[in-house]
């Protein structure tokens, strides 16, 4: 194999050996695990989660969508930022030290990670995030199964140009593996049974992608996602916000499962002997009732409908106006996991477009 391959072919057996080799070299690899077996819900078709893997057999690449997006490895749900002595004051920053390979990330989730990269690298930079990002290898995979509520094909998130180190596409007998970075190129050298992709195989990859996109189109935004920022202009008083949020539990599930939601709270913990403490950040969600509440009880988004509306504006307009990205990638997690099924962006945006 050549060292400068940009599009390689790896046999399925070779991929198995590649994962085994990564593990043999003591890399921490997280991948998607099929958790159908652990579901206690009768008739549940199962779900997928990212978790550390110890053998190639534990890895699933033919998943539809994971319960929680891979953001949990870049912005952990609990992340220590500082440690300090309570008295006398001394304080230091905690730095992430572990290297991580996330094996199997769909393009829409990579787009979401690219958006977080932009947010946290905007000055003032968040070096905790950036350090963790630097230590994370992303191995992407194109979806072959489509989640029932997914609509990424209409959010411009069916493919992604960058942000991955390697990107795999299952073309039947083998995978096409695209190199996205230097780190990816050196990883590829570790992979056995690879060769340069033939033009026909590259065409086959296009076919696989087109086919997946068409299946995802069954559930779609009825207009170009780039129209979202202007569509939302002047819709602040639309009846839909009150109407739909009437069923909102303010549980924050939509925030929790969203790959582009990155809001967090910062809190302190104290050791049991009251000598040491730590400051950590933890996920927060704008749908939770106290999200915009200040000390003294004032709440700048105290109404449920305002919180509900805020999320859709943030996805479709606010982040775009600030960072240039539409902050919904169409993964369908919020739609699938909202207890009241009122979080589906397609349902809300299409209705606003219809003007009813």
């Amino acid at each position: 194999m050549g060292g400068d391959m940009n599009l390689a072919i790896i046999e399925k057996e070779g991929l198995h050996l590649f994962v085994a080799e990564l593990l043999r070299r003591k890399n921490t690899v997280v991948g998607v695990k099929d958790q159908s077996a652990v579901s206690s819900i009768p008739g549940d078709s199962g779900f997928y989660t990212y978790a550390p893997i110890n053998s190639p057999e534990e890895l699933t690449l033919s998943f539809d969508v994971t319960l929680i997006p891979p953001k949990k490895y870049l912005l952990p749900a609990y992340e220590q930022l500082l440690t300090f002595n309570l008295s006398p004051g001394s304080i230091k920053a905690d730095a992430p030290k572990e290297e991580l390979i996330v094996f199997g990330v769909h393009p829409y989730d990579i787009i979401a990670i690219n958006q977080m990269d932009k947010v946290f690298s905007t000055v003032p930079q968040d070096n905790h995030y950036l350090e963790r990002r630097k230590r994370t290898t992303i191995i992407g995979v194109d979806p072959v199964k489509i989640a029932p509520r997914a609509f990424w094909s209409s959010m411009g998130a069916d493919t992604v140009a960058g942000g991955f180190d390697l990107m795999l596409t299952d073309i039947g007998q083998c995978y096409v593996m695209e190199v996205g970075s230097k780190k990816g190129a050196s990883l590829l050298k570790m992979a056995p049974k690879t060769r340069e992709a033939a033009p026909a195989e590259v065409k086959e990859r296009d076919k696989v992608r087109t086919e997946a996109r068409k299946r995802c189109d069954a559930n779609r935004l009825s207009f170009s996602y780039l129209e979202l920022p202007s569509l939302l202009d002047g819709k602040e008083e639309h009846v839909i916000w009150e109407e739909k949020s009437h069923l909102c539990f303010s549980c924050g599930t939509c925030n929790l499962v969203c790959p582009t939601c990155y809001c967090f709270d910062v809190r302190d913990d104290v050791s049991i002997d009251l000598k040491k403490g730590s400051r950590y950040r933890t996920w927060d969600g704008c749908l939770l009732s106290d999200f915009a509440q200040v000390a003294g009880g004032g709440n700048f988004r105290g109404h449920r409908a305002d919180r509900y509306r805020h999320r859709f504006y943030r996805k479709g307009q606010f982040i775009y106006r600030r960072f240039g990205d539409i902050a919904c990638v169409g993964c369908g997690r919020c739609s699938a996991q909202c207890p009241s099924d009122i979080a589906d962006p397609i349902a809300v945006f299409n209705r606003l477009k219809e003007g009813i």
Partner: protein
Amino acid sequence: MGSPSPYLPGLATIMKIEEQTAMEKLFVVRPNDGKPLGHKPGQFVEVSVFGVGECPISVSSAPNKKADFEICVRRAGNVTNALHNLKAGDVIGIRGPYGTHFPVEDLKGKDLLFVAGGLGIVPLRSFINYVLERRKDYGRIIVLFGARTPADRLFKAEIASLARRPDLEYLETVDVGDASWKGNMGVITTLFPKFTIDPKKTYAIMVGPPVMYRFAIAAARAKGLADDHIIVSLERKMKCGLGKCGHCQMGPVYVCQEGPVFNFAAIKNLEEALS
């Protein structure tokens, strides 16, 4: 980490604590590294009480060459209650200064109408004292101060001497007076009929509780002030101060980044900005 953590506060020592009212205390704080904060009037710092947490507090003193600066804190939440329990000599953490400041340069030569509602006097005090140290650089100065009751008024001695200055017009009111109160009673807008301004060269600088803005802005407009002659400072939950955590967001604006000081003209159409 290769690069410093933006969450790492500098250590600072509480030099002095002055009780202002039953709810507010003034803290004189000195950074342990001895360096001045380098703030401008209207900016805020993130104050840490280690083991309790961190919260945004506006700096109340005017910038100067000394390292000491002042914060005036109402006992309202976890961190501020913990701050009230500290004593001189205790060590806290300070990050910042953060946020936008009052346009002290642009306002040179202009008439200034300060509108301070309750705790709003705290950040405005930084600007008022800044102006008084450079009195000749600014035009006419009117200070309006409103508090709920006479006992709630902050900086009483300082304000009394302010009121005696011949180069400054001072008007105050309380919502509810007491037996000894001889002054104005009513909300802050009831002071507006008591003076005239030249709207072309006057800028109103308003800081107060959320409910104050709509009424005070209407009163300023009624005096002929254009929207871009009205400057406000807004309160939000500015948890990180870095434009990341999302709590202070109003529309596409992060108050900790584009604010807390805003020109009213720039945010008047922004949903959620002013209630």
